C-alpha cells in the first residue's frame, strides 16, 4: 500500500535540521517563512559550555538551543497549532505515522543520525536530535525530506524505525510532530520580537556563568589551561571537539552566527527597523571571528602551530567574540523593546 501527499512536498535544503524542517512544514501550508526566519523566531541561537556534562568523554559545548525548541516556539509564536507524540511501542509509532500521512499531513520526526542509511558514513555518530519530514510512503519505503540534503530521499521502514527509536542520550522515543491548524494571518512582527528578546536575554542576562557571553568567557579561560591540565594529546582532542560543535554540518557556519545574521536582515525589513541591518552586519563579522577561531584551532590540531601561547591566542579570540556579542545583544534588546 502506498500513501502519498496530493501535492508534492516542496523540499528546500537548509543548513540546520530543525529550522529547516520548521520552514519546510510552514511553506507546505503556504507561509513563506525562510529557514533563517524560523531559526530566529524559534530562538535557536545559544551558547552553553557545560564542562560537567560529557559527550563521549568530552565537555558539552553547544551553539544552539535544546532540541525541539525551535519548532515548538516558532509555531507557537506564529499562532499555529501543532501536535506532538512520543511512543513506547514501535508498531504503534509506525501506525500513527501512517494514520497522519493518510490525512495528507507531512510529519516531522526526531531521529538519531547513526541509523539513517542515506547519511554519508563519515557523518554517522550517535546524535539523537536530528529532524526530518516524512511526506509519504511507497510500499516499504518512506519518502523523506531531510533538510540537510539537496533532494528528497527514500528510507526503508525498518531503518526509519531504528532511527526513530535510537537509544542513548536525547533518545527520540519515536517523537513525531505536525501542524494541525493554521491561522489566517501570521503575526510575524510579534513573533520576531519575541524571538529576539529570548535570545538576547539568554545571551547577556543568563543567571548562570556557563550560558551566553559569560559561558564564552568561561570557555576562553578554561581553554587556556587545557594544555597543562590535560596534556597535549587530550587538549588537541578537546579542541577538535570544540571545532566540531561549532562548524560541523548543521550549523550554517560560525556556530549558527551566520544564520542568525541572515535572520536579523529579514527582521529589519519585517519590523521596519533600519538599525537591525547594522546588527546583521555586526553579527556577520562576529561569525567571521568564530571562523577564525576554528581556523586557528585547526592549525594547532594539525601540528602547524606550537601549543605554547596558541591556546592563549584562542582565548583572546573567544573573549573578543564574547565582548562583541554582549554589545550586540544589549543593543538588540533595546531595539525590540
Amino acid at each position, binding site marked *: 500500500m502506498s500513501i502519498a501527499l496530493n501535492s508534492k512536498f516542496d523540499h528546500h535544503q537548509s543548513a540546520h535540521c530543525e529550522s529547516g524542517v520548521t520552514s519546510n512544514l510552514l511553506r507546505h501550508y503556504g507561509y513563506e517563512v525562510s529557514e533563517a526566519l524560523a531559526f530566529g523566531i524559534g530562538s535557536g541561537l545559544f551558547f552553553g559550555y557545560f564542562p560537567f556534562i560529557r559527550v563521549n568523554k568530552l565537555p558539552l559545548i553547544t551553539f544552539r538551543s535544546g532540541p525541539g525548541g525551535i519548532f515548538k516556539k516558532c509555531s507557537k509564536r506564529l499562532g499555529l497549532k501543532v501536535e506532538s507524540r512520543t511512543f513506547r511501542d514501535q508498531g504503534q509509532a509506525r501506525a500513527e505515522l501512517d494514520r497522519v500521512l493518510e490525512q495528507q499531513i507531512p510529519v516531522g520526526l526526531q531521529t538519531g543520525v547513526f541509523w539513517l542509511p542515506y547519511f554519508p558514513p563519515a557523518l554517522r555518530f*550517535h546524535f539523537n536530535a536530528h529532524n526530518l519530514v516524512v511526506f509519504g510512503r511507497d510500499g516499504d519505503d518512506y519518502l523523506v525530506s531531510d533538510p540537510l540534503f539537496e533532494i528528497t530521499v527514500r528510507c526503508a521502514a525498518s531503518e526509519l524505525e531504528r532511527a526513530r527509536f535510537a537509544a542513548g542520550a536525547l533518545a527520540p522515543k519515536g517523537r513525531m510532530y505536525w501542524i494541525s491548524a493554521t491561522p489566517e494571518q501570521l503575526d510575524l512582527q510579534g513573533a520576531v520580537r519575541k524571538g529576539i528578546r529570548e535570545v538576547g536575554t539568554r545571551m547577556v542576562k543568563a543567571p548562570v556563568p556557563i550560558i551566553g557571553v559569560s559561558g564564552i568567557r568561561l570557555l576562553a579561560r578554561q581553554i587556556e589551561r587545557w594544555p597543562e591540565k590535560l596534556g597535549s594529546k587530550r587538549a588537541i582532542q578537546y579542541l*577538535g571537539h570544540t571545532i566540531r560543535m561549532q562548524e560541523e554540518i548543521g550549523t550554517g557556519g560560525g556556530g549558527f552566527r551566520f544564520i542568525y545574521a541572515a535572520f536579523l536582515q529579514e527582521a529589519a525589513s519585517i519590523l521596519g527597523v533600519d538599525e537591525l541591518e547594522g546588527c546583521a552586519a555586526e553579527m556577520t563579522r562576529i561569525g567571521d571571528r568564530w571562523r577564525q577561531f576554528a581556523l586557528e584551532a585547526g592549525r594547532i590540531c594539525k601540528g602547524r602551530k606550537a601549543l605554547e601561547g596558541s591556546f592563549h591566542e584562542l582565548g583572546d579570540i573567544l573573549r573578543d567574540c564574547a565582548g562583541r556579542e554582549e554589545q550586540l545583544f544589549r543593543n538588540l534588546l533595546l531595539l525590540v523593546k
Partner: protein
Amino acid sequence: MKEQDVPQDAALFEQWSEIFYATDEEGNYVLVPSRGWDPANLANIQAWDVIREELEQALDEIRAGRFSPLYYHMLRFQMNAGLLAGYVGLSRWRVKRHLRPTGYAKMKQDARENYCRLFKLPEGGLDLLPERPQLPVATDHQE
C-alpha cells in the same frame, strides 16, 4: 563570510553538499552549497582517529583473551555497554558478561541473533574479526 569565500574542501560528504549562509556583493544573505571546510573535516577525522585507536586496542585485547569479539563490534558501532544493552533489550550486567570470553562462550542463541541483527552481521558473523579496524573514513596519521 562572502559568497565567493564559502569553502569547497571536499572530504566527507560524498556526493552531497551542505548549505552555508554567506553574503553577496550587496551584503544580502544567500544560501550557498559547500563541499566542506578543512578545519571541520579535520575535526571530524580526528574523532574517527580516536575510534580507530580504540578499535586497534580492542583487537589486541581480544587476541590476548581479555575481551570477547562482541567488544570489537560494540566499539565499531560507537557504543558502550549501556547503549548496547538499550538496543538489544538486555541488562547492562548481561551485556558486560557477554563482553568477556567466558560469558561470550555461554551466550544463548537468541542473544547471539539479536546482536547479529543489530550489527547487521550474517549468522556466525559475530566471531569473525578483521585483521585491522575497518572505518568508513580514511584517517591519515603521518606522525
